[in-house]
């Protein structure tokens, strides 16, 4: 053989080392939340119940003032109160969160992923393991917004405070009124002048 055994072994050893170093980089440095964040020993569990979680996923971050303080560990449906129960793991070093803080589901960026934003309350007692955040705000569902927009446009172009209050009060009476006004008038919707 042209090359000695020794140089072959060294060459192979270097190659295998390089390969494993690349594998190590790919598995530890590249994935973000894969091998890093809060192990259960460093965090305490908190639950919050929402009407609608939107597209919140397990593993989504929990942030206060934009800083990540924990993550979502489980999402279940609570059939007793007909809400979604979201379990979160908060880092133990953030142990002074008032127990009347509110949890809101927000979107990072315009089309980004959902995360939970916690806004501090003013209570003197703090959240601890197993406590529940009572003040919650559900995710904004685009379809509901569009529905509201359409119904407010269809019920008359003028933003009338009367029709507005009628709408918020009881939807049925509001739409019946506009319906009777609209009949026969092509440009219906000019409500009380």
């Amino acid at each position, binding site marked *: 053989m042209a090359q000695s055994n020794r140089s*072959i072994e060294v060459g192979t050893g270097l190659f*295998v080392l390089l*390969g*494993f170093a690349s*594998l190590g980089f*790919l598995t530890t440095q590249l994935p*973000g939340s*894969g091998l890093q964040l809060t192990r259960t020993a460093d965090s305490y569990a908190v639950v919050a119940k929402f009407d609608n979680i939107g597209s919140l996923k397990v593993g989504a971050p929990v942030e206060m003032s934009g800083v990540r303080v924990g993550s979502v560990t489980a999402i279940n449906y609570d059939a007793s109160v007909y809400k979604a129960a979201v379990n979160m793991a908060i880092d133990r070093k953030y142990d002074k969160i008032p127990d009347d803080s509110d949890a809101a589901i927000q979107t990072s960026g315009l089309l980004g992923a959902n995360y939970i934003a916690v806004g501090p309350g003013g209570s003197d007692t703090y959240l601890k393991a197993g406590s529940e955040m009572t003040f919650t705000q559900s995710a904004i569902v685009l379809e509901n917004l569009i529905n509201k927009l359409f119904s407010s446009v269809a019920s008359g172009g003028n933003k009338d405070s009367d029709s507005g209050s009628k709408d918020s009060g009881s939807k049925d009476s509001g739409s019946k009124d506009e319906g009777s006004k609209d009949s026969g008038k092509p440009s219906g919707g000019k409500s009380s002048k």
Partner: protein
Amino acid sequence: MKIHSAAVTINRRSLALGALAKVGSVALFFFRIVGQSVPALGRPALVVKQIYNAGARSLVVIMLSGLFVGGVLGILGDDLLQRFGSESALGVVAALGLTKELGPVLTALLFAGRAGTALCSEIGLMKATDQLAAMEMMAVDPIRHVVAPRFLGGLIAMPLLAAIFNCIGIYGAQLVGISMMGIQPGTFWSQTQDAVGIRDVNEGLIKSVVFGAACSLLAVYEGYHAEPTAEGVGLATTRTVVTSAVLVLLLDYILTAFFL
């Protein structure tokens, strides 16, 4: 007309039978190799030399290709993402594209071209110069001493080569993106880390192992069953590359669908 159509039918049938026979032959050969793999590992010096041949000698081509593929991903990704206003997702495009698809597939194709042809022509030449027959006469199993170490060498080298390709590719993408296109390094890496999961890296790893087995198997098979002439070895070598390429792409489709 009747005679002509009969000849065509017989031709097609024998072609189909021929293909079926080849698939069966490759599978049987694979089981023979697997049976001899454990004894072959008992002589680690042989396997180490084959890892060197298949892996360390392919390093230059893999690293250069990885750098250029990463650079292309950087340029192309930046151009496409600018149309949607999300240039900061360049790292995501490059990292996910490389670890899940391009890394294993391109490495396998380059491996088939460089190491596969070397394996095939080595064994083919040994057959043509009657070395394999001489080994059999000395009661030395050529599968155990010649074929299995080369198969194992290729199998072990492929995932490592794919990992190196991926790393250098991502480096190339960030070189283009950060130095030339002006993306912030912090944005690049944090977006990448957010988007890439350990599952994606695992999928790429499994793919590269499967592709390595396929390429190495085809290379040693074609070499072992080549016509013992100069022309025969040449034909076997080209058959290796062509069949490896098609098989790798087919397996890629199956595995991608399986992982989804």
